[in-house]
């Protein structure tokens, strides 16, 4: 049924549509570099979405927990075998992504009779020097992107753009962990609100249009609105924060921030978020 070229293109299109649907419930992931390392933040429900991969590598994910687990194990296996056979400094995010899991994800995406991976993945790598820090993102079709400074995972491309432009506007050249944490949570709220808005717009489209005023041009919500949004949602979910801390003693630089760490790091306005 997919033998003909036309059919195949159609099938890929269907697949994209199906996969896009799957991320509707997903929570965005934000990664930022700060003066002491890299911060990863998300707000999760039930299963954790941030993980340690190797001495200087962390993983953030969106999508199906089982698919994420499978890929997490592949990353762990590759990283540890390479680190043992060669050396820990030969384990780099870029090699793991480009030659490791991205081809696997792409192959699964294109094999029409098999299930694709329902995941978007972010790999953060703490370089030996700050200028070597890297953030890699991989989409469900295997396309990857390498950036520095900031990266996000979001449910749709439009939400992704909104979050990135908010970060571009709000992120100073250097920031402390406290500042990074507050900014990351606000950016998460931008993503979460934008996604809610998109859903609402789609439902509205189903009904006859009322006026010409589109909500897509809406102004950036104020900081208070964003904090209120996080606070509203934190009751039934968990704020997850992890850092790759350049100052950490020993070889493993990954550390999950515990509620106690969070409450001492977060600005007052966010305090009640952690108390939950």
């Amino acid at each position, binding site marked *: 049924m997919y033998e003909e070229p036309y059919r195949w293109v159609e099938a890929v299109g269907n697949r994209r549509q199906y996969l896009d649907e799957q991320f509707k419930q997903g929570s965005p992931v934000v990664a930022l570099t700060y003066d002491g390392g890299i911060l990863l933040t998300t707000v999760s429900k039930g299963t954790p979405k941030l*993980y340690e991969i190797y001495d200087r590598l962390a993983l953030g994910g969106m999508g199906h927990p089982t698919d994420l687990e499978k890929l997490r*194990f592949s990353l762990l*296996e590759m990283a540890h*075998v390479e*680190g043992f056979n060669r050396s820990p400094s030969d384990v780099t995010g870029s090699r793991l992504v480009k030659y490791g899991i991205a081809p696997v994800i792409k192959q699964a995406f294109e094999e029409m009779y098999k299930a694709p991976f329902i995941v978007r993945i972010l790999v953060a790598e703490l370089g030996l020097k700050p200028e070597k820090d890297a953030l890699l993102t991989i989409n469900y079709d295997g396309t990857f992107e390498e950036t520095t400074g900031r990266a996000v995972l979001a449910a749709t491309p439009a939400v992704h753009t909104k979050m990135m432009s908010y970060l571009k506007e709000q992120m100073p050249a250097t920031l402390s962990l406290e500042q990074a944490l507050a900014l990351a949570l606000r950016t998460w709220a931008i993503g979460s609100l934008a996604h809610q808005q998109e859903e609402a717009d789609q439902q509205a489209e189903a009904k006859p249009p009322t006026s010409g005023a589109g909500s897509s041009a809406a102004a950036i919500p104020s900081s208070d609105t964003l904090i209120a949004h996080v606070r509203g949602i934190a009751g039934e979910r968990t704020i997850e924060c992890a850092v790759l801390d350049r100052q950490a003693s020993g070889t493993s630089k990954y550390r999950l921030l515990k509620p106690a760490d969070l409450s001492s790091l977060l600005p007052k306005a966010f305090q009640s978020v952690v108390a939950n």
Partner: protein
Amino acid sequence: MGMQGDFLQLLKEQGYTLGVPATVGTGHALTNATTILAFKYRDGVLVAGDRRATAGNIVMYDRTDKVLEIDRHSVMAIAGVPATAYEMVRVLEHSFKYYRRTQLQELSFDGKLRAVSKLLKDNVPAALAGTGAVVPVFAGYDVEQGSAKIYFYDILGAEFEGVEYAVSGSGSPTIRGILHYLNTWGEQPLSALPEEQAMVQALRLLTSAAEFDSATGGINREASLYPVIKLITGAGVQTVPNATLKPLYEAQVVRYV
């Protein structure tokens, strides 16, 4: 299966082998020219080792580190063939990390002990051939139980708990007796020693071992050469810097006759 978090198994699936003798062994006398020791003190466990590496009666190197940190709460002190010992430490280090990262929890202290035993058992052919015998002391702090623990092994992988102390290497017979004496008739048992006194005793013990064993390196003040001493407490492993050992050595170990 990776799901079990067994790193050694993963390596084996990829064709890795440990403990295959390099040649058909003649089983010549096992040498483990060194002195390592571990004893419990008030806050945890102290592990120390001299720094000499020898080949026959030649000193290969005088700054070897034989007390190797495996993770935040455990160290392995090695006596025996260094090539095999370092390889074992590398396997263990990666195994514990791999377990923690895949299973999202620390490997239990007993699990760590098993891992050491398993490696030694795999290494038996090389040990018997005379090319890879390792006789380690494994010490650590069991965070769950809140207590320090010491284990020593024979080359076949049998595990023994050193209740108060453990020693290994060619210089160990000398200090084994001293440890027994100190612990039984000393002013206070080893396990009651405060940190500073524990370090002084370790320096004295290694100096005694060097006195009678040519394969154990002594302290060389001119070259600022001191033994490796590590302290393991609930807070983790801590390496004692030379700057701390130097005044202790000068004030409480050196005897001016």
